[in-house]
């Protein structure tokens, strides 16, 4: 299959080129966040407290990796199911996230938000967590370490594969 190579930070122009169904391959920096991290960020915002990360133009990966065995930067690291983060997507978009990677489908509301913000939702390969481990060259916990696998990791990835599900034009691979 034809692959579109992307390097972070991903530009608005890059995002506009993507169409639902495209296979992409990301190299650079991406951040993990799943249920607990989202809830915590929403709480920090509600309390008008500062956030531990600048999400401007960030790529967010819905994932909770298994612990890193000796000699590896991270353990198994496949995507988690995205709809659980639907309620927080507006917040993350307003903070500057421009690409989300997870698995499964999004709500109609999220799909509209993606178009409004010119952001993209991709699915990586659910359950291919050992395979995706091979694309991670470095991993650092940068926030909420107390959440264990639900901490926010800064990942350096090399040719991390995903499929564009919802593009900036309202295109939807699952429709």
């Amino acid at each position: 299959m034809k692959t579109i190579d992307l390097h972070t930070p991903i530009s608005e122009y890059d995002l506009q080129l993507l169409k639902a169904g495209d296979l992409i391959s990301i190299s650079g920096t991406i951040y993990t966040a799943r249920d607990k991290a989202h809830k915590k960020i929403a709480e920090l915002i509600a309390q008008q407290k500062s956030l531990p990360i600048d999400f401007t133009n960030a790529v967010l990966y819905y994932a909770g990796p298994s612990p890193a065995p000796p000699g590896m930067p991270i353990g198994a690291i496949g995507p988690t199911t995205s709809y659980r983060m639907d309620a927080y997507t507006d917040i993350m978009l307003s903070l500057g996230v421009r690409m989300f990677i997870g698995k499964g489908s999004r709500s109609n509301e999220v799909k509209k938000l993606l178009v409004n913000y010119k952001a993209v939702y991709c699915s990586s390969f659910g359950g291919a967590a050992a395979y995706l481990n091979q694309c991670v060259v470095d991993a650092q916990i940068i926030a909420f370490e107390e959440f264990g696998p639900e901490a926010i990791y800064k990942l350096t990835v090399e040719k991390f594969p995903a499929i564009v599900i919802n593009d900036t034009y309202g295109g939807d691979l699952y429709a």
Partner: protein
Amino acid sequence: MRTISQEELYTAVANLVVQANFHLPDHVVQALSVMYNSEQKPLPKETLHILLQNATIAATRHIPLCQDCGSVIVFLQIGTGVTIDGNLEEIINRAVANTYRSHYLRPSIVKDPLFDRTNTGTNTPAFIHTEIVGGNSVAITVYIKGGGSENMSSIKMFTPTADSEEIIDYIVTTVKQAGPNPCPPLFLGIGIGGTADVAMLNAKKAVLQKEPHPKEEYRKLEEVILQRCNNTGIGPLGFGGNHTVAMVRIKDAPTHIATLPVALNLNCHSLRYRSTIL
């Protein structure tokens, strides 16, 4: 009376936990290979290829098959002629906790579902189901179930006059609504009959049955459900094609004159389990 030592049980459970998390059973790999070979469309074919590579990498590099190392479900069939030298639950949970730690498996269990979702850090407690049977041996199955596919579980209490067509419709609709979320191609376990709880437990047990149902009418029903689910066009991880369900297994039970429960266990493509007999 035969005695099984704590060490024997501990070692058996620990080995099963490792096997299940790193080595996809042969028949599951076989099912993925068959689907890969027959798939024509590029995206689902590439997806199945990645899933097969995932199984190889997990086994050879000792990386868990999935980052969601699941809830640990343990089925025990304990013979009446055998005693276990120790507290069964304690031994199993100790084996699970130590193995999850020493093999860098992700702990995913929180201690309270509602008021204190703090990770126990050990992936315990395991969910243990015991059954007393004849004989002087203990059969143990360790089944690893991920949260994403577990969230797509479903049960419906049909009226007793419902026919199999209504049941098929319900199952296909559930698979369709779940769409890409439970990581298809699915291994679909169906519990029919019993009480609501029995049907759900049978749905769990059904997916661990390698062979089709022994009775012809249920075997045919399994085939029809497989066919109908594969006509939905969901495909591997929702990327299209005609491989949405890899296998359908039914476990039936007698039921009340007023009831006809049907429970569904949607297992992702990574059907992780191992069994042994002590």
